[in-house]
């Protein structure tokens, strides 16, 4: 008798989705000036979930104006102590509504409910908690005795961790005394709109947080708005460069969190079963839609064959399917566009001579899906070793010595994260020192925490989010030189 796990769906009834949403400006939901809306779908079923407003120039102007008014009249005049209390309220409300928000996130994004419930939502609440506590302690953060906010922050976030990316942006901005206008990704607007509801429940003064939904044009209008003091962007390197060009010559402060092609390095003395878990988590967690994904597996050549066998064995127990099923490990790809990109790059892997393998994986009829995939015999020159695929596709390369591992790990324009698996302490620290990436995970992977600063080297972006270092992005320090 085989041990089949019966479907274990999380109930959808915990969340109420409106048929249509407006923009959240100045504390209220309002229709867009020119009335345009667009649909958002569930990528696992292609069912339409709702329609949301497409913010045009007039809407962006209104949102920035509301943020400016709220900054000038209310938020910048409020003590840090009081700001803290509003942010604590929001953290608590998020905890209370966690189940609802997790289900909503899974419906809109396609990620497994186990991840949105156990990873995304707890971190979202934790980010608001952590930053709430900083609001009245900024003079101790190392930015001088009297650091000030910047003013109005324009924030554009991606679709891979919609509510978590919102938390990473809004929590520090508010804690430091700024007001915000945030644009969620066009394929995942719903949890941001639910967050707007939470702002209302928390009685947050109107205009402190504004949410404008829309696509690339809305983001561009927001970033280019002359009355914005700070721009924060997480997304692709290509768009990040465009934004950096767009704010050149202005006084807007900028932070960017862009793509990656992280090396996950496994030495011959690695704790092998846990390393395999780390590899699997590194690239298949969130369907590989992670900027810091361990997408290049660097195996020490002397143990490569056994490690690949163990990896393939482990992949056979991954479950792909309904994201609302609590037993699902691999959910849906977020959009048909992203699926097309993954397919194109994966095909290039085959064309360029790498060996492709996937476990047997029944694929549902509707929705956007891609099975977990491993390419072996990959070299640095292959496209699948250089370009960010942003999908559940692992490229396996080998190395002979620690120096060679470092060279290969660093041989990329990206520099977001690196994984290192070895039992030898001195080697862990030596490798951590040498790799040029903002995050180093040694004998672990994909760990996040609001106290821990996150961000990249080189074309993975600049600036950090989280920790005391992350506050710097939202503060203005009087600087004689």
């Amino acid at each position, binding site marked *: 008798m085989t041990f089949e796990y019966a479907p274990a769906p999380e109930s959808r009834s915990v969340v109420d989705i409106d048929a249509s949403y407006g923009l959240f400006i100045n504390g209220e939901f309002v229709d867009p000036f020119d009335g345009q809306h667009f649909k958002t779908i569930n990528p696992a079923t292609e069912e339409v979930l709702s329609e949301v407003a497409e913010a045009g120039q007039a809407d962006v102007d209104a949102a920035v104006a509301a943020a400016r008014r709220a900054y000038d009249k209310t938020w910048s005049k409020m003590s840090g102590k009081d700001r803290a209390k509003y942010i604590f309220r929001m953290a608590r409300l998020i905890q209370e509504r966690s189940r609802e928000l997790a289900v909503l996130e899974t419906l809109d994004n396609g990620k497994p409910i186990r991840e949105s419930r156990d990873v995304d939502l707890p971190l979202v609440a934790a980010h608001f908690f952590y930053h709430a506590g900083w609001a009245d302690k900024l003079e101790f953060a190392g*930015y001088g005795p009297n650091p000030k906010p910047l003013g109005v922050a324009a924030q554009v976030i991606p679709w891979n961790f919609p509510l978590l990316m919102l938390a990473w942006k809004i929590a520090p901005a508010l804690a430091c005394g700024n007001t915000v206008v945030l644009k969620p990704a066009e394929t995942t607007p719903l949890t941001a709109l639910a967050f707007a509801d939470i702002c209302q429940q928390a009685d947050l003064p109107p205009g402190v947080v504004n949410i404008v939904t829309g696509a690339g044009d809305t983001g561009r209008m927001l970033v280019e708005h002359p009355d914005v003091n700070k721009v924060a962007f997480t997304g692709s390197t290509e768009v990040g460069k465009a934004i950096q060009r767009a704010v*050149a*010559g202005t006084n807007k402060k900028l932070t960017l969190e862009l793509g990656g092609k992280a090396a996950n390095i496994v030495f011959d003395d690695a704790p092998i079963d846990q390393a395999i878990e780390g590899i699997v988590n590194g690239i298949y967690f969130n369907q590989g839609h992670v900027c810091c994904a361990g997408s290049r597996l660097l195996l020490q050549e002397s143990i490569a064959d056994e490690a690949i066998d163990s990896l393939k064995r482990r992949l056979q127990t991954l479950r792909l399917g309904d994201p609302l099923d609590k037993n699902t490990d691999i959910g849906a790809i977020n959009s048909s566009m992203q699926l097309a990109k993954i397919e194109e790059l994966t095909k290039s892997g085959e064309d360029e001579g790498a060996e492709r393998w996937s476990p047997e994986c029944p694929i549902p009829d509707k929705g956007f899906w891609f099975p977990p995939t491993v390419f072996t015999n990959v070299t640095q020159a292959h496209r699948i070793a250089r370009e960010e695929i942003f999908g559940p596709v692992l490229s396996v390369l080998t190395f002979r010595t620690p120096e060679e591992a470092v060279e290969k790990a660093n041989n990329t324009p990206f520099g977001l994260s690196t994984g290192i698996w070895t039992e030898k302490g001195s080697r862990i620290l030596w490798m951590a020192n040498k790799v040029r990436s903002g*995050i180093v995970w*040694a004998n672990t992977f994909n760990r996040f*925490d609001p*106290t821990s600063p996150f961000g990249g080297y080189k074309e993975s972006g600049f600036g950090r989010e989280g920790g005391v270092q992350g506050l710097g992005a939202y503060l203005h320090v009087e600087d004689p*030189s």
Partner: protein
Amino acid sequence: MSRVDVRKTHKLFIGGAFPRSESGRTYEVTDAKGEFIANVAQASRKDARDAVLAARAAFAKWSTATAYNRGQVLYRIAEVMEGRREQLVHDVAQAEGLSSRKAAQQVDASIDRWVWYAGWADKYAQAIGNTNPVAGPFFNFSIPEATGVVAAVAPQDSSILGLTSVIAPIVMTGNAVIVMPSPSAPIPAITLAECLATSDVPGGVVNILTGAPAEVMPWLAEHADVNALDLTGIVDEAVAADLERQAAGTVKRVRQAKPHANWDATPTLSRIRSFTEIKTVWHPLGL
């Protein structure tokens, strides 16, 4: 009959050596009254290219030198400058049209600033790095690391103190720098180069290209092996904006122009932060 003096040839400073510009060009530098002082090398894009190579090569060792060692090297720069105080005072007075007394104040403040930064070398990691109390069985620490190769434009109006205030934090944190001094007042920078060359600074850690920032900086702003720009001394907003745009091509870190600053005041940590990257490391805490 007074002695015929031997006049200096003012060359570039690249990789610890003093080459002429590969273009062979020079330009005239005059004092504050418009009198001719010297022909100074005018750097070309190829000089910039060579400087980047020298800086990248030097970066590998400089960034891995111990903080203590870097502090000692910076302190020695101050020692050597102290020994050359009179020459520097003369150069600054001539370049900026200052009285000897005022020029001396600038030179003294510069030497003191090198000493100040020397003292920071083994401490800034404690000021801007820390462990992080993550919510799980992990040890987690954040440390500042050098960004890499920095291309900098020194202030136009402060030929030694502003210049020092731009260079010192960049190299103190382990970076290598290519700096363009004020085109109209470059001589103090060249004298500084002589101090650097005779101190313990490894060749290539500081490279000084005299010439026209508007001509050379775009090449550096687009150069894929330059990690950051310091546009402090750019006066023209349009030029600054262009350079910022070019920097976006490889996502360089840019410190924006601030052509008129109060160089006398004690600096903040801002420049140290501008040219360091925070790296955060996680490791499980277990049996």
